[in-house]
């Protein structure tokens, strides 16, 4: 039977590893951490270290390999680090934490609204002024328009505020 002190050491080790993960910035949106982004799905202790379960954001996200390397490097002190890529359930922006959303907004990126299920969704013809009014992360005005459906990374689109005239990025809900 495990002694209480050993148990608390084990818990401390797991918590310490989580703490390290919480400090790893997303390589493309460095203002939030991998944990806040919701892509660290699980952290399991193994005989020699940890198994980190990650889920990709987009199928073609070029940062996937970089993220794995960052995780391995950050946790190296904890022993052998295995990484399991788990596709199911598919990542959704609904997994971004409240804290993460607040940080995105403060950074000038409009956080995603709730994801809508795609199945059976009719094709809607997109108007230049977006049907869902998106608030400008700088001045808060809802008088905004979409400039580009795709942006600097797979997860974002580009918008512009018509009140303060600043462009801003929107983290697309998926």
């Amino acid at each position, binding site marked *: 039977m495990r002694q209480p002190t050993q148990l608390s050491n084990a818990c401390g080790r797991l918590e310490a590893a989580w703490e390290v993960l919480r400090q790893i910035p997303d390589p493309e949106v460095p203002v939030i951490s991998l944990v806040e982004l919701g892509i660290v799905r699980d952290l399991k202790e193994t005989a020699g270290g940890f198994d980190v379960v990650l889920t*990709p954001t*987009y*199928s*073609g*996200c*070029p940062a996937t390999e970089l993220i794995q390397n960052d995780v391995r490097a950050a946790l190296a002190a904890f022993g052998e680090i295995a990484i399991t890529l788990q*596709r*199911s*359930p*598919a*990542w959704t922006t609904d997994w971004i934490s409240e804290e993460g959303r607040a940080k995105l907004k403060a950074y000038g990126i409009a956080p995603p609204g709730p994801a809508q299920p*795609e*199945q059976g*969704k009719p*094709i*809607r*013809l*997109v108007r230049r002024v977006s049907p869902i009014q998106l608030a400008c992360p700088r001045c808060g005005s809802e008088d905004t328009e979409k*400039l*580009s*459906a*795709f*942006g*600097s990374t*797979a997860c974002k689109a*580009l918008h512009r505020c018509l009140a303060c005239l600043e462009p801003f990025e929107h983290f*697309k809900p*998926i």
Partner: protein
Amino acid sequence: MSQQSIKVGDSPAVQYLLRLADSCLVLSQRLGEWCGHGPILEEDLALTNMALDLIGQARGLLTRVCELDGQGHDEDQLAFLRDERQYLNPVLMELPNGPARPGDFAFTVLRNFAVSSWLLLMWERLQSSSDAEVAAIAAKAVKEASYQQQHSADWVVRLGDGSDESKARMNAALSQLWPYFNELFVDDAVDAAAVASGLGPAWSELKPAWAAAIDEILSEAVLPQPKPSAFVSNGRCGVHSEHMGHMLAEMQYLQRAYPGGAW
């Protein structure tokens, strides 16, 4: 020294998944040709982002194909070391973007609309595949295909119901592409096996919903549908157009000339 070509096995599951994987990979390569040449910056970003989604989907499927094929190949070897006849994408995917580089934007957006509508239906169905890995790839890809369909449908309508020039270009693109759509809905023994094992739908099953999406957007775009064509291409069985070899020569050059080269 050049690299030896490889072949995959002929199990129906491998062939079924390769048809889809190669569709994503080959269209991704064509969209990538627009990089730095988009008619406007926003569309340059859009076309290359779509290419990125497609290559991610292809990677997942190719990796699964390698596991099922059991010859110890990896996704890169499948992409770079197969010869033309071993590629199983419908010919639609490999057609050049236009007569000259980088291509015709009308042709590109119309093909993107047709293919993303097809892929969206395919991914929706594959979410309930008996192969858990394929189902997981599909659950992610369905969101990406939906966004691509929205974006390309918007352009089809803007250009089709636009200026005289844009309308003429869309009509020309439609008549060029029309005969190549047939191949997306032809079944053979590979489909029958996929239906029997629960791996995925027979391609013909997707036709009614696809045709409805095409009808909707073409009528919104005020573009008349060409007459039905009897031509059926056969890329999904490895018989390609004259364009495929040239495309692969460019795509595979580095791995063939510098085996195993990486950055």
